[in-house]
């Protein structure tokens, strides 16, 4: 049984312009011990899918349909008797069995609390540890994420740490209770490359040493290539393709996946040939397209793509793609 099961998720946001359909029918499994990358551009719904799962949607957002299972438990908001019971249950899970690493460590850490206070908080809230035990564990965590002079640093405030060190603290807080699931939302986007390398190295080590599942939300294909076992490509609120790292990079099936891979430059390649950009821009999710979300930008779009949403084609146990091009029936349609 998978650790996380998301089935047919729809997430919407009420705005002044109307209802934004940010996530449209996402189904996804995450297994214990694996690293899954969710890749997409801004507005593709990659973050909102995960925020829906852990109950951290903004006030104007809500889950409009679908179910979640986490570690065998049903955590679909509508399965709880009332809002309060749901919020309470999620609060118990977050910081304990599931944890989150955010993009900007400075907005995650409380600037007026010592690092130590913030590190022991999840321990005191979710376990029976005494303050002294929690402090010991906090020091252990700081050493685990590679912070030198932990005894001295634990008494300091976030502003006394550099960007990379702060992100290490955020990771330490996430790991405090040996979570089964860690969701990392663009954890290295705010960091410089050499610091990004340090943090990615750290996450890679943690992946090997703990049995936590990691979900990595990112727009950077380089980051997922390094860290992830499986990759889901999101576009216009849908998962358009999912597969192992090798299937996605070496045998992409969806034109958007191919486009993404072609439009970034691999520094190992010396040819100064023009990059192939994907023309146009992503769809407006206030009024999402009826058929395939990528139809407006797709070079290979057919008549059927505009009017009917493509169904999932399975290439292997791990590799699926939603595209009419890979669907046998589309050929008769043309």
């Amino acid at each position, binding site marked *: 049984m998978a650790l996380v099961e998301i089935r047919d998720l729809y997430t919407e946001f009420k705005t002044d312009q109307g209802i934004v359909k940010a996530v449209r029918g996402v189904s996804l499994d995450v297994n214990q011990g694996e690293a899954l990358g969710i890749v997409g551009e801004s507005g593709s719904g990659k973050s909102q899918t995960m925020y829906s799962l852990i109950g951290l949607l903004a006030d104007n957002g809500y889950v409009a349909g679908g179910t979640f299972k986490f570690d065998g438990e049903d955590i679909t908001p509508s399965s709880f008797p009332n809002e309060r019971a749901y919020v309470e249950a999620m609060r118990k899970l977050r910081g304990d069995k599931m944890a989150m690493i955010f993009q900007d460590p400075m907005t995650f850490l409380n600037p007026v609390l010592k690092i130590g206070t913030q590190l022991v908080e999840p321990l005191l809230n979710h376990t029976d540890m005494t303050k002294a035990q929690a402090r010991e564990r906090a020091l252990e965590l700081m050493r685990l994420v590679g912070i030198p002079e932990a005894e001295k640093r634990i008494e300091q405030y976030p502003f006394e740490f550099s960007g*990379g060190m702060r992100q290490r603290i955020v990771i330490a807080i996430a790991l405090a209770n040996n979570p089964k699931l860690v969701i990392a939302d663009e954890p290295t986007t705010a960091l*410089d490359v050499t*610091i990004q390398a*340090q943090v990615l190295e750290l996450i890679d080590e943690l992946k090997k040493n703990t049995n936590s599942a990691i979900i990595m939300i990112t727009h950077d294909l380089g980051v997922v290539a*390094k860290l992830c076992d499986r990759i889901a490509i999101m576009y216009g609120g849908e998962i358009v393709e999912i597969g192992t790292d090798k299937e996605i990079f070496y045998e992409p099936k969806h034109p958007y996946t191919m486009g*993404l891979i072609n439009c970034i430059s691999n520094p190992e390649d010396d040819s100064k040939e023009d990059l192939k*950009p994907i023309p146009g821009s992503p769809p407006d999710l206030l009024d999402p397209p009826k058929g395939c979300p990528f139809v407006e930008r797709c070079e290979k779009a057919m008549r059927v793509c505009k009017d009917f949403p493509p169904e999932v084609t399975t290439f292997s146990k791990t590799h699926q793609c939603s595209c009419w091009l890979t669907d046998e029936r589309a050929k008769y349609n043309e």
Partner: protein
Amino acid sequence: MSENVILQVNNLKTYFDVTKGLFAPKQIVKAVDDVTFDVKEGETFGLVGESGCGKTTLGRTIVKLYEPAGGSITFEGKDVSKIKGADLKAFRKDMQMIFQDPYASLNPRMTVGEIIKEPMIIHNIYDTDEQREERAVELLKIVGLKPDHIRRYPAEFSGGQRQRIGIARSLAVNPKFIVCDEPISALDASIQAQVVNLLKTIQKEMNISYLFIAHDLSMVKYISDRIGVMYLGHIVELGPSNDVYHRPLHPYTSALLSAIPIPDPDQAKARNRIVLEGEVPSPINPPAGCPFCTRCPKATERCHTERPQPIEVGTRTVSCHLYEK
């Protein structure tokens, strides 16, 4: 690309006084310290480095948004580091800039047409508004927007489209040189390639030189003919982009390059990174010797006391004691 040097920067220094309080000891940030390089006509010179290394300050000093504290900037044979008045205005026409944030660099209360026409008015390029309008429409077409976009406001455009408006504005005065300060880092991957290809096409057609500042090394390598690697206010290595990438000489360049995430699972997972210890020292109190000595895996006694001078190694200029004979 020709061999004619259009921009020559010699020993350029930009310092900021950050002294706090009246009687406090003087504190100077040496954001750019002793930087020398040149850019040829029609060439793209890439400037890479991590945040705080001084690459943006260097770009802004060159377009004269900051006063240099020392050194010279020679543009088309004239020293522009001290110019004022009419000369400065003429210089500004030839030297344009594209900014990082397409949301902050366009006035939200001006239409796209007004934004693009404003530099033409300032520099008196056309006599009538019809001519300016015609040119603005032409520029919109060049950057891949539609002529009827001219009446719209920036808020109606996406990030990539706004960056195109910024490019059209910089082209409005027919510049010879454009400083591109992280022009693509605020954009999504599929849009980045659109903008980079546009910049390349414009360069081919109009023979404009670029100073391309970015922290994204793979994009810089792709667009640039030559690259300068900056660390703590210094250019530590400079040379043709393929050479620098494949055979880095300076230990910092090697570390920086090995940190680039490679978008290929086999290459990325097989690769061994040179993971640097620690972080960049404060530019208020930089190391006495080589700026990189505190993090360098190959540092010797000498590196901590004596600053390495730039030396030529083949096609490259590198500031490192390891390469002195």
